[in-house]
């Protein structure tokens, strides 16, 4: 049987987080009454002209710098001509032959745990263009309504090389790109509102074959789950077609999340001739090295730089550092936790960093992952201050790890219950609950010693076993002490005292 290789390239439309539109002064805010945020330019009244918003160019430059691409010294806006009611001018201003960002790459972690591997996806280009309006097909009694609020919203279209070989790689790329555009502050990444949408070009070929198969493009995937499902379905469908002796014809398809299938939108023969030509209303976009320098100065640490810093400054492993850099917020959160976990006079050390990293990776990320795709990655159930404070109290010996975990979970559930409208708990609350619920750990040597003596007296069998060389008996004794202490005895002290007494 033929072994098939999947080939995927992705085009992403990221709405840029500018206050006003790319070629007019109208607001880009989402959710206003239809057509209240469309000015004369957006409506394409006779005689109006576009003026480029420099902030949109700043975003493109940021992106170019973040992916190590070439920011073109000169790029050109062209007109993509086609008729549609939500395209007021009858053409979209876009970039074609000379895009503003050329090349670059993104290295992503694919898979999880032991099966994780690193993959570098090369980017072809990223170009600036304007978004179209929206056609509203409901509530108009057989007619269609047009909302031009979105018309003219700046987009960065980001195009990869056909470098991905599985839906997992495609999703890993899309997630990393999503995290990156948010990281550098050029896109809010809100997928429900359409701020970040992906098109996937999918083809299959027999393993070992050099030339690509015929591709079909799946349009407008607005969640990572749909991206994966659509690709998996499409791959399955294409292989089946070929194995049944049919040819794949180049086409654009849509994914129907309800049926989980892709269906044909138009074939290549129906494709428009967009009649691109340079827009005579706009001069070529010239970007000086000074402009690039200004943007660079304004940018905060990029993912790879921060990953190296985490390894260097916190002594984290490369794997932990990369997990803490899957997005901007999680790394920030980690640094916040470390800071608030410091006991007075302490300086950041490896023990603390590893503890904080473990908590963020194992507890916080796990909770975030439970929320699924739609959950904004900056909405943590427990603030880094509160978690830091919990860890601090734990490290001070005030509470045990078990108590810390219980409080953390309780706080997070509180936030989840209020739909993340605010954080669960706060540092003061930690101390309050420790007090009112009597969660304080017993760290008084005398008190623990009394407990240890009590247990040793009550369990001569275990003591004898230990003395006969059975290591397990020691653990049983520790368990007994903790049981008598209702779990609140400092385990380290219990260990030490037990050892001392048994040796003596």
């Amino acid at each position, binding site marked *: 049987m033929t072994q098939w290789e999947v080939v995927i390239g992705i085009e992403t439309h990221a709405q840029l987080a500018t206050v006003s539109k790319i070629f007019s002064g109208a607001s880009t805010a989402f959710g206003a009454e239809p057509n209240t945020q469309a000015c*004369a330019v957006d*409506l394409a009244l006779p*005689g109006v*002209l576009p003026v*480029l918003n420099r902030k949109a160019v700043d975003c493109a430059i940021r992106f170019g710098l973040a992916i190590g691409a070439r920011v073109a010294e000169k790029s050109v806006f062209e007109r993509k001509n086609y008729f549609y009611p939500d395209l007021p001018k*009858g053409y979209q201003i876009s970039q074609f032959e000379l895009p503003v960002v050329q090349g670059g790459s993104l290295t992503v972690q694919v898979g999880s745990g032991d099966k994780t591997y690193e993959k570098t996806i090369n980017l072809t280009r990223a170009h600036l263009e304007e978004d179209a309006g929206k056609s509203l097909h409901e509530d108009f009694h057989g007619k269609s309504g047009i909302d031009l609020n979105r018309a003219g919203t700046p987009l960065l279209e980001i195009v990869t090389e056909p470098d991905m070989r599985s839906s997992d790689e495609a999703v890993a790329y899309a997630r990393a790109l999503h995290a990156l555009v948010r990281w550098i502050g050029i896109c809010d990444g809100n997928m429900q509102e359409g701020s970040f949408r992906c098109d996937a070009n999918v083809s299959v070929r027999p393993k070992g074959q050099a030339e690509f198969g015929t591709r079909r493009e799946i349009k407008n995937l607005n969640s990572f789950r749909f991206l994966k499902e659509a690709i998996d379905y499409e791959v399955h469908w294409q292989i089946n077609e070929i194995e049944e002796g049919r040819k794949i014809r180049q086409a654009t398809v849509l994914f129907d999340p309800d049926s989980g299938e892709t269906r044909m939108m138009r074939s290549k023969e129906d494709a428009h001739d967009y*009649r*691109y030509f340079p827009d*005579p209303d706009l001069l070529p976009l010239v970007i000086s090295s000074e402009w690039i320098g200004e943007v660079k100065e304004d940018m905060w640490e990029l993912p790879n730089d921060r990953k190296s810093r985490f390894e260097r400054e916190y002594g984290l492993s490369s794997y932990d550092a990369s997990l803490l850099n899957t997005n901007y917020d999680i790394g920030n959160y980690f640094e916040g936790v470390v800071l608030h976990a410091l006991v007075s006079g302490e300086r950041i050390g490896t023990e603390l960093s590893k503890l904080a990293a473990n908590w963020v990776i194992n507890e916080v990320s796990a909770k975030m992952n439970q929320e699924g795709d739609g959950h904004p990655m900056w909405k943590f159930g427990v603030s880094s201050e509160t978690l830091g404070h919990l860890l601090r109290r734990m490290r001070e010996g005030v509470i045990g790890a078990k108590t810390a975990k219980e409080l953390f979970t309780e706080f997070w559930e509180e936030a989840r219950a209020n739909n993340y409208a605010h954080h669960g708990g706060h540092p003061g609350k930690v101390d309050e609950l420790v007090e009112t619920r009597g969660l304080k750990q017993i760290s008084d040597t005398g008190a623990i010693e009394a407990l240890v003596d009590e247990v040793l007296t009550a369990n001569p069998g275990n003591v004898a076993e230990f003395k006969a060389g059975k290591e397990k008996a020691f653990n049983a004794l520790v368990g007994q002490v903790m049981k008598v202490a209702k779990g609140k005895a400092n385990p380290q002290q219990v260990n030490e005292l037990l050892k001392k007494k048994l040796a003596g």
Partner: protein
Amino acid sequence: MIDKSLKQLGQALAAKEISSVELTTLFLDRIARLNPEINAFVTVDRDKSLAVARAADARIANGTAGPLTGIPIAQKDIFCAEGWTTTCGSKMLANFVSPYDATVIAKLHREAGMVSLGKTNMDEFAMGSSNETSYFGPVKNPWDRARVPGGSSGGSAAAVAARLAPAATGTDTGGSIRQPAALCNLTGLKPTYGVVSRYGMIAFASSLDQGGPMAASAEDCALLLNAMSGFDERDSTSLQRPAEDYARDLEKPLAGLRIGLPKEFFGDGCDPAVMAAVQAALDEYRKLGATTVDVSLPNSHLSVPAYYVIAPAEASSNLSRFDGVRYGYRAPDYDSLDDMYMKTRAQGFGAEVKRRILIGAYVLSHGYYDAYYLQAQRIRRLIADDFVAAFKSCDVIMGPTSPSTAFKLGERAADPVQMYLSDIYTIAVNLAGLPGMSIPCGFADGLPVGLQLIGDYFAEARLLNAAHRFQQATDWHRRRPADIV
């Protein structure tokens, strides 16, 4: 009063010899009397005009008036004017009332305080050289009502020629200010591309379109250009340059002026009677101290073909917004979206506009783009280079504006190529982005002949100087049709 220059009108208003309301009324009454025959105006709104005139009188009374405040002007119907129907000569926009002012309108109206008398007829979307493509019917040449006034700014030209307005705005994409100026005995100026804002000027071919003044004299044009020009942040192709007084050099003597005569403009193809008037004008210039030098624009024969690729290409895209969705004409009956588009555009556009949209779509389409559009852009560069070379040996280039005088209505309407050749001397100037003028320089069989003056980039003041000194020595520009009173 109707023959006074803008400067004289300004003085009369300042001296309270006449009020703006009186002056405006005088011209509105002339329009009411003569326009039915000439068809120069498509929209007149007496109340609106008089309200502005009253405001102008108030400015004159309280001492905040400028040199043009209170003087009436006619606006080509390609400029959007708030509250005015703005049709661009098309059925497509016959019902379109603009909610905003073009920059040119705002400058003339709000800043300079001029009084708009109305909107003038034009070839549909400025596509034509005879004003016969207008949805609102042809304009008659005041010099001979059986003849065309030229186009596309034919309504503006006829309005000023018949003294229905002291001056008018025009736009020039391939000669649309200069050719009608020549055919109607006016002075018209197309500035350097980027000097006058295109914001609110309905686009025909964006890289060629340029607004400018049409009036009786160079002096009038200089004053108008002062008011119309200037950087506009709403037009990305507008040029950021220090403001200049275009009238500053009007009186400079012409001694030493080097006039370049391109041999390509003095060969075959020009009506001998037109050529005779042009030669006589050149003799006059020599008398004024100028010298003439032969120059060559070797690629000028390619300007018409290049223009008829580039202009339709841009137009085909610029006119896509007229789709019946948001404003303007929409076909009354249709059964699908595509059907609505097709019927709306089939019914809303005239034949010449459709022809150019088709040509434009064709030259931009896949597989033809390189052979037509890119090739035309290369020619455009060569043509611009020709001028740069020519201006090394001369200060101003001169020649005929149009190869013939005003032709008869209907004479060329059936033959587009013949019509396109009306602009054979003017088109290269747009392709190069240079300033050009046409000034009256005599008559052939009783019909006006225009002399074209072409300057280097930003040489408007020098062109106006050369035109003004000529007009001080001649009286061609003062003549008006004998039967217009």
